[in-house]
């Protein structure tokens, strides 16, 4: 039973990683950059929910919707101000800028909200489900997280593969120049990608802090990095890859917490990343890209 309950909470944590990893992988696919600040957008989202629901007394649904709006705007603004001027620059410059943005968001939150850890109240009001005579208890947060993630992933998959803007996004990630010649607004598509990724980050932030109710300006950093590991694990740039990679990583993390050592679980997750990159640098579902001279 212990294994099963660890597995289920692993899937729940993994679904959150998947949601975050989707933001990473879509941005990486289309803008070819590692958006280090993505993890901190999660934190901002969680703070918006916290302020709206705990301080402002709004209902959780309204709070989450507000967080989605705020994060979407934030994502687009970050892209416009910090990343767009560097579109043609070397990847080192873009990466350092992204780290700068990440630090900016963290320290901004530190000044506005303070460094003390806040008790987040869950946005989920579902009762825990007890199975097998109370031996297996699944919390409402776990159920909602898994269901919401599943719906979002299906919706995203349909959006990218079936709708016109989705196909345009795919085209831009495939070949920017050719897409532009076909009349696709490349900058618009990149902004749209950042908007979608940040909206997902807001949802992930609300779910993450409902499951692990401690909120501080540094809340987003570690899940952000782990979600990037998940995106690499699944194959960066691949949407199904991010989903599979996230869930697998969540399971690995929870099982190593349960059976090996809770202090070493982070180290194990990172060791997985190094192994994946050594053995299969393109990830589980990634495509191999040949270098052109």
């Amino acid at each position, binding site marked *: 039973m212990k294994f099963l309950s660890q597995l289920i909470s692993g899937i729940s944590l993994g679904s959150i990683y998947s949601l975050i990893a989707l933001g990473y992988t879509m941005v990486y696919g289309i803008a070819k950059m590692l958006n280090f600040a993505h993890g901190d957008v999660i934190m901002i989202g969680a703070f918006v929910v916290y302020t709206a629901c705990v301080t402002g007394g709004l209902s959780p649904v309204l709070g989450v919707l507000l967080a989605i709006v705020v994060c979407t705007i934030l994502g687009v603004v970050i892209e416009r101000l910090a990343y767009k001027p560097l579109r043609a620059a070397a990847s080192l*410059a*873009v990466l350092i800028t992204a780290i700068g943005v990440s630090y900016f968001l963290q320290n901004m939150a*530190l000044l506005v909200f303070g460094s003390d850890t806040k008790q987040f109240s869950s946005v989920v009001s579902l009762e825990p489900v007890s199975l097998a005579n109370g031996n297996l208890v699944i919390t409402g947060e776990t159920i909602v997280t898994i269901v919401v993630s599943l719906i979002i992933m299906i919706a995203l998959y349909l959006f990218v593969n079936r709708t016109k803007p989705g196909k345009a996004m795919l085209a831009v990630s495939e070949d920017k120049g050719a897409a532009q010649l076909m009349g696709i607004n490349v900058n618009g598509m990149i902004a749209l990608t950042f908007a979608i990724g940040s909206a997902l980050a807001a949802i992930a932030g609300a779910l993450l802090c409902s499951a692990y109710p401690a909120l501080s300006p540094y809340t987003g950093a570690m899940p952000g990095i782990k979600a990037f*590991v998940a995106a*690499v694990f699944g194959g960066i740039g691949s949407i199904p890859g991010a989903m599979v990679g996230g869930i697998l990583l969540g399971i690995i993390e929870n099982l190593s917490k349960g059976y090996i050592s809770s202090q070493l679980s982070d180290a194990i997750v990172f060791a997985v990343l190094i192994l994946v990159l050594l053995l299969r640098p393109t990830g589980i579902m990634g495509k191999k890209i040949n270098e052109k001279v």
Partner: protein
Amino acid sequence: MSKNQPSPLSQKKQLRPVTKKNLVTYAIVIVFFALFQTLTVTGNLKFAYQSLLVPICTNVIMAVSLNLVVGVLGELSLGHAGFMCIGAYVGSFFSVVTEELIPVTWVRFTLAFALAAIAASIAGILIGIPVLRLKGDYLAIVTLAFGEIIKSLVNVLYIGKDSNGFHVSMSSSGLNLLEDGEVILKGPQGISNTPKDSTFLIGFILVMLSLFIVTNLMDSRTGRAIMSIRDNRIAAESVGINITKYKLLVFTISAAIAGCAGVLYSHNLSSLTANTNNFGYNMSIMVLVYVVLGGLGSIRGSVIAAAVLYALPELLRGLADYRMLIYSIILIVMMIVNNGAFFLKLRAKIAQSFRNSLQKKKNEKEAA
């Protein structure tokens, strides 16, 4: 003899521009050292400021060592604090164990530095192996992962000593020490009672040594090969430069220097623990900020930026809260101004108009 060729005599006296540049860097460090050492000895420096001197040296060494990776090789390392962590723990461990065995401080301290440099460079080679296959963003994230792994590992490691020798375990009860045993490395509590051997003089010697190593490396055939990898990897490869070898070399040297910085750091504190701010991600980013603000590839810039940016918030207490916010904004602005398409065009325009006006003056002179 034509006008353009200097006579052999004057050629002998003329220093190469690179040598001149390096000498200026050394001079800055020496003047800085002489000034503050005199102030300390004569008792004109407040104790609070005296305690800043060794950490400044640590940060300067870290910045110089990271600049070798980021500025000279052109790869981003986000786990540099990990190498420092290894150096700090190995050095402290050695000093605590041999404190009675080797009573002469400088012998023990030198051995601690040597051992820490070796341990850190082994780690550099280990991290170098994935580096051979990766570049850019992936490499950055692997170095980050590596730094976090080291930090997690030292936090769960327990090492004790008794008459039977050393015992290593993942928990304090797993050591099974004899009665006379003593726990040296206590997991999250780290190593305590490290002899406080670090002085400003030793810090200064280390800074000079790392400057000497890095500047001479950059000025050598090897250094030019490394910089060619940074400027155009494919072109470098096509003229027969062994990229694997040079990347590994840079990571090893840089790790060894960072390890020495760690020893300097740990022997300045009575108890050594590993957390995010000293050996984690935050420290790595802080050093990166020094390197970027000092100028990628500019060793002198790194030295000055590290010293000033470390000391400034300590001196201006009111600034401490806003320090990281200001640094992050500077980081973003610097990157955009130096690399953004708009600013590059603007710069080219200004340079062109400057050149035009010079040409005009020259023409006028000739006409006159």
